[in-house]
């Protein structure tokens, strides 16, 4: 009888492959885009519905496994919420948290959060990385058009009637453990293998609550700011919302 242990062992099998995967160069790709033809003038005073952010903070073990850390994740969630509230001014819009839903409404929110995650992963993979194009979107992406949607059904989201846009945020952080950093140094000094110590990825997206169109997406696999501190979280939120349509340019 299974216990889910088999799945974890499969992940385990991949870990050594990750162990020696060289640190990937974060540059050489687009990391932010805006729907073609969409403009949001600064200070247009729209209402933005913030969907519960997906936040995961932990450490990376010497061998490359993710070690979830409940305390850090809690701190990060609190710090990000504070930082978002503080940044409202810069956005030139009003950000309200999505109402807590139950039953079918909650399932709808979960469905759309999952759909947003899937669509934004497609954008990151097929639009932000030149050379990896979806056959059906080849011409549009080559012409630089940004045209993705979650469908008009999103208007049924709880709270959608009182807002113009939905903001989705996701961060995933793994801080290198002491062992991992030691291994990184030895691997660099010895055989000259570049190892990554940790992972600091995040993305943010703005969706039109009438049409479901993806208006803006910002994704980065190497972000700054330590979410465990209020200052770091402020910096991360600033990076996540950099180039936010209609925002006042903030010093980076």
């Amino acid at each position, binding site marked *: *009888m*299974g*216990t*889910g*242990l*088999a799945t*974890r*062992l499969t992940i*385990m*099998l991949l*870990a*050594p492959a990750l*162990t*020696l995967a060289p640190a990937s160069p974060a540059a050489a790709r687009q990391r932010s885009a805006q729907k073609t033809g969409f403009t949001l003038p600064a200070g247009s005073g729209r209402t933005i519905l913030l969907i519960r952010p997906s936040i*995961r903070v*932990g450490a990376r*073990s*010497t*061998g*490359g*496994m993710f*070690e*979830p*850390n*409940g*305390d850090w*994740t*809690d701190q990060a969630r609190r710090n990000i919420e504070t930082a978002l509230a503080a940044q409202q001014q810069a956005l030139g819009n009003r950000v309200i948290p999505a109402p807590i839903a139950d039953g079918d409404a*909650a*399932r709808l*929110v*979960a*469905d759309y959060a999952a759909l947003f995650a899937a669509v934004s992963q497609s954008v990151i993979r097929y639009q932000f990385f030149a050379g990896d194009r979806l056959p059906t979107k080849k011409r549009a992406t080559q012409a630089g058009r940004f045209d993705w949607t979650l469908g008009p059904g999103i208007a049924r989201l709880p709270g959608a009637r009182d807002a113009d846009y939905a903001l989705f945020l996701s961060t995933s952080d793994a801080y290198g453990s002491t*062992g991992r950093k030691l*291994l990184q140094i*030895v*691997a660099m000094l*010895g*055989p000259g*293998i570049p190892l990554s110590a940790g992972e600091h990825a995040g993305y943010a997206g703005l969706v039109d609550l009438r049409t479901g169109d993806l208006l803006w997406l910002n994704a980065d696999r190497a972000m700054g700011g330590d979410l465990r501190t209020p200052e770091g979280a402020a910096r991360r939120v600033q990076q996540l919302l950099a180039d936010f349509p209609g925002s006042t340019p903030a010093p980076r």
Partner: protein
Amino acid sequence: MTVTALALALLAATAPAPPPYAGAYQPVGVDEIGAWAEADEDERQLALSPLLIRDAALDAYVRRALCDTVGAARCAGVRVYVLRVPLFNASMAANGTMRVFSGLLLRARSEAELGAVLGHEFGHFERRHTLAQFRAQRTGSDLLGWGAVLAAMVPDADLRRRFATLGRSVYGALYRFSRDQEREADRLGIGYLNASRLRPQAAAQLWHSAIAEAGASAVARGAHRPRLDRIGFYASHPPEAERAATLDALALPDATDRDDGADRHADALAPWLPLFLDDQIKLNDFGASAYLIAACAARGWTAALWRARGDLYRARGNPHDLVNAARFYAQATALDPSLAAAQRGLGLALVRTGRLAEGQAALRRYLALDPAAGDATMIAALIAAPEDR
């Protein structure tokens, strides 16, 4: 069978009684608190999953099977989620989230058989196996990380071979670790059953059925029966034959006349049986599905079971299958003429075997029983087709 013999030799006559239970356990230390935080987040998603079966009666029955097995005190630490997944499995997360697959409910023949699996899963929770597994994997991958870097420093073929050997030993040790956890969970599970009011012999019966099902599946595919008595290098669980023999040996001998709750199980499953059988048939595993339908029919053939058997044969769709399918659907409609799905299957099977008029008559009965069916327009077109088409 030497493995089984060895396992039997090592074990006492019956499983030890469950240890005293500490009550509401809370995680301790960074690793465990982290594991619980992840499991909590997963549980939020799980509660909203489209796979979740939201049926208070079925939930109550599965929960009862767990509580009857492990006792009320232990049961209180667990949330049970029944998921529509047609696989023989259940799982337990670090924080007490128990996932029960519909495929397990379909395979268990009694409350005691279901309780045997749920007790095993609870054993993982009580012994905090997820945490121990995580730590073992971390230690193993740390070792391999250092091994890989150090081996890469010396350009020596012999050293690389030794590193490959190290990798195999680490993996071998981790899979063995996992199998040993499963063995411990099996011992705890049968211990709960022995201490309960349910019949502990049911635990081994479930594994004998699993072995028979795997055999039936292989035979229908023309393959050799799988060897379920040997330990594979990458096996996360002990082989089925070993588990059946161990559970047989550990079950309390003078508890054979206890109630195993077969009627309770059948009653609780009845409203869901057609759907669970549908899901199983769609796995396209003819031998296993035929075995499971026959196993359910051991309590007597019902219209729902004849209908499922008809679907199974009609899905394979060889000419002889369609003739048999029509026969099975006819049994279903004889038992329950108001079963729309059986009239539909009967009509389609007859039409495809050239008995158009009889088939159309059955399809007319189907539409009369279910005028708003999703495929009503398509079926109406079949009925309208001239007989000499």
